[in-house]
Structures are given as structure tokens and as C-alpha cells.
């Protein structure tokens, strides 16, 4: 993204001259207080909103509207209650064409990777919150997007479920070499998942911190001293950035 700005009518600049780059295959996260423009920035990156100024570029192409090269996971799972889990995962395909056996196999494979292999025929309301989030992620990955955008997808889950989901999520993204931009308000989540953390305040990116922790990451790292040091660093950066 280059010098991207966006404002809603009658509001000050929600996103103000943001520059950000993500290299292929990297996971970046964006932290900031509620209401400082994180979600708006993500929607700009997704093409759901078009910037007032500046450009968003994906794979060298200027982004004009959402497309299949992008996957998006919302704050809530946003599943269709009247479709089975499998049909929910297949939705990106069924909106374009009739699903082929290969698509079904791919959906089954993603559900298995997400630990939901037996639940394809169930309906979303029969699943727990964590399982619903897993379905939403599987759906976003179905078309193998080159860039996956997530908007606090785990915010509503309990701590242990969230840790499990983070680990599974990382494993799948590393497997597929997916580029990820992850918005969250949870500092430890941001640090744990990412190669790089952006700190946002008042519509601007105020800090850009590299996370030099080894991959793969696991439970020991999550509660170790180096990890906490990085978290503290991010926290200080957020304090310096002013309030929203």
C-alpha cells in the first residue's frame, strides 16, 4: 500500500497516509486500540473500500475490487446457517461455478487440516464458537488466496481455544506459503503469529517492529522470556502512539 488515505463523510481521516508492504509468504500483524482504523485499513487492503488517495497493490496489480486472489476472515465467523459446513466452505466456488469433485476434495482436506473432518454434514449452529471460526478460515483458504486478510477472527474465543487455533492456523499458512495480514487488538497474539508487527494509532502506522523469534513457534516460546520482551516492546510502542 502506498500513501493510502480514507475518510468517512463527516469524520476525520480514519486511515491517514499509510505505507505498508508485505513480502510473499510472510505473516504480518497489525495492532492498535479499538477504533483507530484497523478494520478500515483491512477493508482497504481487501478492496471492499476504495482509498480516497493512494493505491493498494497486490502481486503488482492495482486493486480495484475484491477478487479470488484475496481471502478474508471477518470478526465473527459469518457462516450461512441454512447451509451445511461443507457447503459453507465451498461457497466461494459455488458462487462462480458448479463445484467439481476436486473442489469437494479440497474442502474436505481443509476441514481435515482444521480438525473438523467429521463435521462437514452438520449445520453451523450445531458447532461451537471455535469450530465456527475454523470453518470460516477453511472457507477463506479454499481458493488458495495469495493474500489472506483476517480481522480479529479469534477475538470472541477463550484463551485455550485461541491458542490451539493460532497454532493450527500458522501450520496451514506455512504449508501453503500464504501471505497473511492479521488485525488484532491482542498484543501476544500479534507477536506470536507474525514476522512483523505494525502498530496503528489515529489512522497512522506509528511503529514497525520485526519479530526475531524462531519458527516453528510453540508453547514454550509463548511463555518464555524473549517472547515477553517483544510483547513489552510492542506495548511501549502503543503507549507512545497517542490515544484513539
Amino acid at each position, binding site marked *: 500500500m502506498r500513501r493510502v488515505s480514507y475518510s468517512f463523510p463527516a469524520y476525520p481521516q480514519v486511515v491517514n497516509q499509510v505505507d505498508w508492504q508485505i513480502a510473499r509468504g510472510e505473516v504480518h500483524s497489525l495492532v492498535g486500540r479499538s477504533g483507530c482504523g484497523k478494520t478500515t485499513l483491512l477493508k482497504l487492503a481487501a478492496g471492499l473500500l476504495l482509498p480516497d488517495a493512494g493505491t493498494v497493490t497486490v502481486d503488482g496489480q492495482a486493486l480495484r475490487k475484491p477478487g479470488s486472489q484475496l481471502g478474508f476472515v471477518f470478526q465473527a465467523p459469518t457462516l*450461512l446457517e441454512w447451509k451445511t459446513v461443507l457447503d459453507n466452505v465451498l461457497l466461494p466456488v459455488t458462487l462462480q461455478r458448479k463445484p467439481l469433485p476436486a473442489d469437494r476434495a479440497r474442502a474436505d482436506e481443509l476441514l481435515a487440516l482444521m480438525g473438523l473432518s467429521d463435521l462437514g454434514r452438520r449445520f453451523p449452529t450445531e458447532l461451537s464458537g471455535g469450530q465456527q471460526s475454523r470453518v470460516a478460515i477453511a472457507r477463506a483458504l479454499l481458493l488458495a488466496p495469495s493474500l489472506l486478510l483476517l480481522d480479529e477472527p479469534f477475538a470472541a474465543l477463550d484463551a485455550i481455544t485461541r491458542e490451539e487455533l493460532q497454532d493450527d492456523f500458522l501450520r496451514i499458512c506455512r504449508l501453503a506459503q500464504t501471505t497473511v495480514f492479521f488485525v488484532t487488538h491482542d498484543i501476544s497474539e500479534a507477536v506470536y503469529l507474525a514476522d512483523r508487527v505494525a502498530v496503528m494509532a489515529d489512522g497512522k502506522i506509528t511503529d514497525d517492529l520485526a519479530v526475531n523469534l524462531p519458527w516453528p513457534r510453540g508453547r514454550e516460546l509463548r511463555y518464555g522470556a524473549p517472547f515477553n520482551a517483544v510483547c513489552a516492546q510492542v506495548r511501549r510502542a502503543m503507549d507512545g502512539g497517542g490515544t484513539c
Partner: protein
Amino acid sequence: MLSRVMLGRLASLGLFVAIVLGWEALARGARVSALVLPAPSVIVEALWSGLRSGYFWPHLLHTGTELVLGLALGCATGFLGGIVLGESAFLRRVLFPYVLVSQVVPKLALAPLFIVWFGFGMTSTVVITALICFFPLMENTLTGLQQVEPRKLELFRMLGATPMQTLLRLKIPSGLPVILAGFRVAVVLALVGAVVGEFIGGSKGLGALIIASQAMMDTPLMFAVLLLITVLGLAMYQLAIGLERLLLWPHLKETTKE
């Protein structure tokens, strides 16, 4: 021990028996004229003889046909109207005031006009019934389509869905509970439309039979017909509930499990 549900049902049944017995006692004991308040036993007799001789059946069929035709016509146009108004903000602004005015006019008051236009008989009654059913379905379809979660609309935009796909695969399925609630209201109103339509312009049907029994001062017959209308209404309502269960079972999944 009886569960609370069973106890409630038993009490409800007991109340029914008490009312019928009390009514019977009142009608016999107080020597109320059968013209004013016939005893339940007399009504049941009138009902039974009418059913056995085949006197009621053509009328029941007539009213049932009007009901179904009017309901189908009114619901189809109401549903389509709701979709058109829901999808186009421009048409909504242009047409909604007219729709509203047309619905505030009491439709039954228009019945004499329809008789002038369509003549005595089935057509007028079907048109009145359809007009009465139109509004609840249109209103609920409109509401249902507009109640879609904004996030789901964004999801469909994200997946590159066309407006038609968004309508058919997102807005209508997610609005279905509200639309079917409108259908339930329409079913009940349709019966009113059909019967009252026959009061005014019919020579056949249960409504016409009530008018005829009034002219003949045959009050037991009138009560018997009222009973038939009630049963017809209950049957239609149960059908509507059944349809709702059938179409909404994925929506209801969570509640049925508990």
C-alpha cells in the same frame, strides 16, 4: 408425576369440557331460545346431519378453493412485490406511498366495487382474498431482505457474487423466517377474506351459508358452519406451520436439540 407441559394441556382440555357442559346446562336449564343460543348437542347434531347428507361438502370445497387461490395469488404478488421494493431503493421511494394507501383502504369495503367489476361468484372473492394476503407478505419480504447482516453482504461482495446471486443465495434464505411469519399471518387473513367475500357476493361457500342460515333463522346451522370455518382455519394454520418447519429446519436446528 405429571410434567408441567402435560398438566397445562390437561387443564386446557378440562376448561373446554367445562365450557361445553356449562353452555349445555345454560341452554337447557334457562330455557334460552334455540334461536339465540342453541345447545352444543343441537349444534353437533346439525353439523353431523349436514356432513352426512353431503350438504356441507360443496360449500366447504368452494370456500377452500377460494382460500387457496386467493392465498397463492396474494402471496406470490406480495413476495415478488417485496423483492422488487427491497432491491430497488428508487422504486421503493416511488411506489411505497401508493402501496401504503392501497392497504390502509379497508379491502372489505371494496368488495361491492369488485362485484361490479368481476361479478358475483368466485372471482370477486379470490381478488379480495388476494388483496388481503398481499400486504403482510410484501411487508415481511421487504423487512426480511433488509435485515441481512452487513457482514454477510460484505462476504458476498468479497467472493464476487452478482446482485442476483446475493438475492437468491443470501437475502432470501436469510430472510426466510421473517417471510414465513408473514405467510402465517396471510393464511389467517385469507380465511377472513374468503368468508366475508362470500357474505357480500357469493351464493355458494361457507360465508354464503351463514347468510342463508340467518335468513332461515336456523341458528344451529350457523354455529355448525362457524365450527367448520374454525376447523378449516386451524387446518390451514397447521399447514403453514408445517411448511415453516420444513423450510426452516436448518435454522431451527439448535433449538430442536435442546
